[in-house]
């Protein structure tokens, strides 16, 4: 299965705005996507509750996995999102 490893850039990690933007993008991806931290179980990237509970901090590496048609494109988009500081435009 296609996967991407990406370091989370947002200052607050995957919480609040960055988490909401990520979960919304995952929901639009058209394929099932999971997210995990090294050593943790993969969880549904479309669940804000699950993503917030994963407690990803800035600088943590996460592993995105998807399957099916369009999986690679979806992972590229989500990986780009995570590698961007999503708080930067909102000082």
């Amino acid at each position, binding site marked *: 299965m296609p996967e991407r490893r990406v370091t989370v850039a947002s200052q607050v990690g995957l*919480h*609040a*705005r960055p*988490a909401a933007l990520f979960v*919304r993008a995952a929901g639009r991806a058209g394929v099932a996507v999971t997210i995990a931290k090294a050593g943790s179980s993969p969880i549904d990237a479309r669940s804000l*509750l699950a993503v*917030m*509970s994963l407690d990803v901090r800035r600088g943590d590496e996460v592993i995105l996995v998807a399957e099916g048609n369009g999986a690679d494109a979806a992972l590229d988009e989500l990986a780009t999102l995570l590698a961007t500081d999503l708080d930067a435009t*909102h000082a």
Partner: protein
Amino acid sequence: MAVHVSAPLSGTAMGLVDVPDPVFSAAMVGPGVAIQPERAPGTVVAPVAGRLVKLRPHALVVLADGGRGVLVHLGIDTVRLDGEGFTLLASEGDTVEMGQPLVRWNPADVEARGFSPVCPVVALDAATGAIGNLATGPIDAGAPLFTWN
């Protein structure tokens, strides 16, 4: 089974649409109700019974029966206060009762530091139509805020 979500603090209940942050006003995290808090030192209490799966100074999530997570965010962009002015009264992972004190804070201080102290209370991951009986106007901590069907 419906989850009855109560007000985590006293103030004035208002629509999420008036919260000055698109994450909440556009219901990106889920539907809910915001509370404009009284500008005085106050205690934030658990809006439902369940497990306190997340406790940061500026935000908390209680996971109720049926896996439903209720988010309480204390002010907007208050992650930037780095916990200053917030006193935690419980620990992440605790099982809490509805109405149990969780955080002490002072909305007047938050406002004086340039942040909106408005508190969105959100049904995480819920569809917009999944909540009803939304409260509006003056509300006391512990009073019914909305029902999550």
